[in-house]
């Protein structure tokens, strides 16, 4: 599923970032394919993602380009 479809509190693993530029931007923020993240907030047209080291805001239009799988 796409990151935009995730729900708050869900732990996800990033499996594919559809746009090269976005992939590089996320990588420079410490987020790569295969990384685990937690969706901790979803409002005002953005999603807040958290990894062990980073917490970042990503707007919904960008979240629509990130493929994730839900971790149980």
């Amino acid at each position, binding site marked *: 599923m796409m990151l935009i479809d995730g729900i708050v509190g869900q732990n996800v693993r990033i499996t594919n970032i559809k746009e090269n530029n976005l992939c590089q*931007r996320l990588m420079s*923020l410490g987020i790569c394919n295969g990384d685990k993240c937690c969706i901790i907030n979803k409002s*005002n047209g953005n999603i807040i993602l958290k990894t*062990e080291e*980073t917490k970042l*805001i990503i*707007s919904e239009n*960008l979240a629509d380009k990130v493929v994730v799988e839900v971790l149980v």
Partner: protein
Amino acid sequence: MIKIAFVGNPNVGKTALINQISNAKLKIGNWPGVTIEKKEVYFKVEDEDIILVDLPGIYNLTSNTQEEKIAYDFLTNEDIDLIINVVDSTSLEKSMYLTTVLKKLNKPMIMALNYSDDFEKLDYKLDLETFQKELEIDTVFTNGKKGTGVDELIKKSIETAKNCKNKKIEYKKINYEENRKILKNILQRGKNNKFYLTDKIDKILLNKFFGGILFAMIIYVMFVIIFDGSAPFVDWVDGFFGDFITKYVGRVIEGVPDWLYSFVIDGIITGVGSVLTFVPLMFFIYFFMAILEESGYMARVAFILNKVMTKVGLSGKAFIPMLIGFGCTVPAIYSTRTLEDEKTRRLTALISTFMSCGARLPVYSLLAVAFFSKNAALVVVSIYIIGVFMALLMAFILKRFNYFKGNNEELIIELPPYRVPTFKSVWGSMVQKTGMYVKKATTVILGILLVIWFFSYFPNNGDTENSYLGRGAKIVQPLFEPTGFGNKWEPVASILPSIIAKETVVGFLGQVLITNEEEEEEIEYNFVEDLKEQLVGLKDATIDSLKSLINVGKFQIDTLTMSDEETLDEDAGGSIIPAIRNLWNDDLGKVRAYSFMLYVLLVVPCAVAMGALKQEFGWKLLTFQVGLLLILPYIVSIVFFNIARLFV
């Protein structure tokens, strides 16, 4: 001479580290984008001349943002001896990307693992020896706040810079994935969550339903404290200049020719005094700006306001320069460098000038207190809100033009952990910025006020109404008549110098409206007694300020307000507030004053801000902005006055 460049992700404490090493006072904050240009600090260690270069925080060395471009240009074109790669030791994995990119430059490098205190608190463990060996970089743990590791860092830096001089450096491990894997094997994270407290605070402050309301409340309370807390001091400074300084300087220069007396008292003391009266207000506003910047809340504003900003074609990130604009328009314009898209930068810089800067605040405060007594603070807040509204409206309209229409609805921004602002940095920021206000008042503004005094004194020896300035202002006055405030020449005359610096409006009105004529009656001079009275006044102001801070919810400027019953003429000498009140003493006084405030809010920013706009975006945008901000305030004031007068 050793030239060292400090490079790192945004918000990893580069500037704080430089300040700690060199005792400099560069601006620091807790949001991505505090440093937006390179700054250099010179100092000496054991006869060695050293230049430390503070580069803007970057994630990469591409040209996505102006900051990355500045850093890239500097690192590739300048002859630097060493790079200090500053890293947040609690975000090592994240920093590996930039570290790898920097290694590709093949320059001598040392890594400063900053926030070592947090690293220890979180119980992280790192095999430093393996880390250094595998990454091929010498590493030092540092703490920019406390200074831990700073001596070792600078010692190692000098050594490395000297050893590597004229040597070819080549790093072997320049693969990001590889470096990340190395780190994963040697870094052990503790059980404590880095964002534990931040998450708890964010749950409240970024709540889907209450986040926006809490933001509005924070801003509201901030303004209440700014006004209520500073009002007693403003009142005291006003009296200090009006009653004390004027009285004794007047005595010292007694007997000099009238023009010289007027030059000193009206030109210098009253003019500059009127501007300095608002120093306490500035002190309070800079206090809150420092708290907002250092706590980490600033970046959250982007999240809260993203939806609103998206509706006008911008992302939430664009609100950060707007928020900085509440302090000063100049850094607001420069801080648009954090935005990726050039057209978005243009639009954001343009609308940042609608935000009411600190220099305009004295004008609103003065008029609001003089005309709206108990509702003064609410009136000032309403002006700020109108500024934000106009900025958003303009963005909404202008985004339709290709020149401003960029790809600006994409938002990625890192949220820093909340940090308690340190007294040292908050105090330093307040003193530095207030000091700049005082410096400006006693240099540029004084210069302008002296020129104004000349034109308002001659040729009729103090008859301002028939002075060069009075006559000139009266020629253009009819043009401003429909705005309401243009029924008097004084506010019209204050517009031109305000383009150089907004504070001159207050100084100018003080100069021409306050009557400092030598009174007929006998004045008693007792310097010691009068000084004592001033000191008691200062003590009372401090107590009143503290009382008003305790009583925050009241939301009114108590000490500055005058009851409506007070006789205006009796109060009209020596102090600026009653003098202003006398300016428009008809039924439409309040409407005229508000119309003038709207004009000041929207009129072209000061010369320095216009210079910044030209420097960043060129003549085209500046010309457009000047044109817009000459026509718009005029229309807004006319519309407001003619509608509002119907209800009076």
